[in-house]
């Protein structure tokens, strides 16, 4: 108990402390940083979401972003995409800002009545490479067939979108992200509306991205097995941002301190682990 008060107190005093710890932690890492975030304060004019976050997003890592509603998960992703500016702090791209950042928005925002086929949706991932008059060249067509195949939608590639189920649409959108071929990939709650088998399938794609040395940022909406695929976590909430290896960040104390879980939820979820004993003592 006293441990929790101390840690949350330190965090509130300045999340920079946590950030500095993480930066040191990653210094020995051989993986090169795709993006370095320094002293980042994010928010809107009358609302600060969190203060002074410093962290690296390294190639070949998968970062889970968690937080209660309104803690700034989607805002963080928008900021990474360059759609909004931070209140202060900076983003440093050691290898230059990528030409394209892979991005998958929440599926609820998608208009499924739009009259295109699955393969056209996937091709959209590479649309900037098209000429004004020419479409995909032979190499890109091969790449697209492979992407559709990996996402599991090759057999329905000629279907219009309105004939797809939610899971099929999400697979098609994953094919588009594959076509983007980006070193940094941002996925905003990609499993919120898909069934377990689709989730497992899509996770295997994320694992391939990680193995290829791409950096994947995954906004997740609950504590689930998805976190097993993530090397790092960024927990937002209570105007704080805590970053580090998954097991260091997602402790019951942290999750309660930043308003992600209530104490009773935490003790139920983490029952049988080390910290339950602490809670039991309290």
């Amino acid at each position, binding site marked *: 108990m006293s441990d929790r008060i101390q840690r949350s107190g330190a965090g509130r005093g300045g999340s920079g402390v946590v950030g500095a710890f993480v930066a040191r932690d990653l210094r020995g890492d051989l993986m090169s940083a795709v993006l370095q975030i320094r002293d980042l304060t994010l928010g809107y004019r009358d609302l600060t979401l969190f203060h002074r976050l410093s962290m690296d997003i390294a190639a070949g890592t998968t970062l889970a972003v968690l937080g209660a509603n309104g803690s700034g998960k989607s805002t963080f992703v928008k900021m990474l995409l360059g759609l909004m500016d931070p209140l202060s702090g900076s983003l440093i791209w050691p290898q230059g800002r990528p030409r*394209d950042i892979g991005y998958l928005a929440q599926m609820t925002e998608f208009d499924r009545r739009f009259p*295109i086929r699955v393969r056209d949706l996937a091709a959209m991932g590479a649309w900037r490479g098209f000429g004004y008059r020419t479409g995909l060249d032979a190499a890109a067509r091969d790449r697209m067939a492979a992407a559709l195949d990996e996402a599991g939608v090759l057999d329905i590639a000629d279907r219009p979108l309105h004939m797809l189920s939610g899971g099929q649409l999400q697979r098609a959108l994953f094919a588009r992200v594959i076509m983007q071929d980006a070193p940094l990939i941002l996925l905003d709650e990609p499993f919120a509306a898909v069934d377990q088998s689709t989730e497992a399938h899509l996770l295997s794609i994320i694992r391939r991205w990680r193995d290829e040395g791409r950096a994947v940022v995954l906004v997740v909406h609950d504590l689930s097995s998805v976190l097993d695929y993530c090397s790092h976590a960024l927990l937002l909430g209570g105007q704080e941002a805590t970053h580090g290896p998954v097991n260091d960040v997602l402790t019951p104390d942290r999750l309660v301190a930043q308003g992600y879980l209530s104490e009773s939820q935490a003790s139920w979820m983490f029952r049988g682990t080390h910290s339950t004993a602490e809670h039991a003592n309290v």
Partner: protein
Amino acid sequence: MYDLIAEMWSFAFMRRAFVATTVLSASVAPVGAFLVLRRLSLAGEAMAHAITPGIVIGFVTAGLSVMSLLVGGLIAGVGVAILTAFLARRTILRSDASLASLYLIALAVGIFILSAAGSAVPLKSFLFGSILGIDDASMVLVGGVATVTLLAFAVLLRPLIVSTCDPVFFETQTRGPWLVDQGFMLLLVLNLLAAFKTLGTLMAVGLMILPATAARYWASTITGQLILGFLFALSSCWIGLTLSYLFPDTPSGPAIVLVAGGFFLFSAIFGPLGFGRRMRKPSVSKDIPIAQIQQEERAQ
């Protein structure tokens, strides 16, 4: 019947009207398709009203010339489009409410000036169009707008498709997403002005929306949507003009739009994406019915 058509064809103003609306169809069809796909069908109508004061002021100050129509309409239309975007960005109002507010003001201004200017104004042809009004200058206007529109679509088509299909994704892909939005609005205003003489301010949008919504019931691809929309628009114009000739007191605008409405109803009933799907034999396909999409959309 044949005699009537031969007689109709012998009039220069009718031949002129057929040529003008043929070119007009090619121009407004793609604009209409994207109005519908971008969920701006009603915004198109609002914009048609919004350009009214510009046309009226141009008319009152410089007479009913193509130049006054173009300049006045462009200023009013682009002004309203920019103000709408500004209000939607900086205030609590969404763009539909912003546009509704602005077009109502604009329309009131237009009608006020029109009434104050007195009876010299041919109100009926102003609101509903007149095939008699298509002079050489109007032909040049229609041709010019069609050229600009088709060239713009040649360049803008892909960005427009991406931004329409997935605006959030498109925003991450480009530095100036507003360029496509505002560029499209400009094309809309230009086409409304081109359609003004034949169709009038009240009916101008009809030739854009109805062929596009009718095509929507048949086409599952953008290409199909564009081609079919053009064919519906063209047929509406030709049949509508003929009707307008057969019934001499009818303005051309409502006649053309009525035919387009007929295509729409036919498509809604028989098109595979309308009720037509239900009229076929029940299939064992795994297609998701429209009803299920609607269900899921409500759930969100």
